[in-house]
């Protein structure tokens, strides 16, 4: 049973962040890498809201930062997934090994 306090909320956010980093470093497909970035962003957003609740109780600056963050996440997802689709159309493969050999041309 975990107490509902700032230390536990921040621990949860760090754990989610690290899980996302693990996915970022071990998955191959570009879509899965973008999905891991979403997990990382989720952990960061969680820390923003918990700081706002426990330490800065008068105004909602943390909520405001959360809204900025999901705006950035939406733009990033749109651009990244667009790139993944173009990449798939050209090479029939969205692995990051293929992406690191772009200079070799089509094959």
């Amino acid at each position, binding site marked *: 049973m975990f107490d509902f306090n700032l230390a536990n909320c921040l621990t949860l956010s760090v754990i989610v962040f690290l899980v996302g980093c693990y996915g970022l470093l071990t998955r191959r497909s570009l879509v899965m890498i973008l999905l891991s970035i979403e997990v990382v962003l*989720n952990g960061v957003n969680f820390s923003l809201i918990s700081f706002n609740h426990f330490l800065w109780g008068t105004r909602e600056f943390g909520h*405001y930062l959360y809204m900025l963050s999901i705006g950035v996440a939406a733009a990033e997802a749109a651009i990244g997934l667009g790139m*993944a689709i173009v990449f798939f159309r050209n090479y029939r493969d969205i692995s990051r090994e293929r992406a690191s050999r772009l200079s070799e041309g089509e094959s």
Partner: protein
Amino acid sequence: MSELALNNGLFSASATLIVLFSLLVVLARNPVRSTLLLIMSFLPTSLIYVMLKAPFVGILQILVYAGAIMMLFTFVVMMVNPRPEENELGHLPGADPAGTRRIELNVLGGLAIAGIPLIIMVRSAAANLPLGPEHPSEFGELSSISKLIFENPMENPLTVSFELISFLVLVGIIAAINFSRRDPSHKKGTP
């Protein structure tokens, strides 16, 4: 049951679910399953947001994250349709499974070396911080947030930066449309 015990129980259950689903997102071999599991991990997150007196943010988490962004991911996964067995490192042509296991263990060890001191530092720092003042009665509701962002718009820097985010999303849309446009000289049927 007192409100404190209820909060602790809900927080424990939601935190366990969030960590479990996030781990499954990262470890699942099928991308469609990963996407749906990430949506599942957003639901307990929004429950904790409501407990943190941020009901509007909890609604945004469901509507925008789970509803819009993750649906975009689901559609792209279905269009691209990556085969599940190609998504792990060991299924590269010519890769050996032992090397893959070694890479994964190295990443895990590096994250543990970086993460465990980080968690200890965060916990000890958070235990010593003074708690903030009491919340006003409308804290976290839409009226209060909009008052924070749009009150006195000519002199409020938050208004400008909030409107600039809409430009960022517009640039993202234009870039995505530009990516997906086909080259006019492209012959049909050739890759």
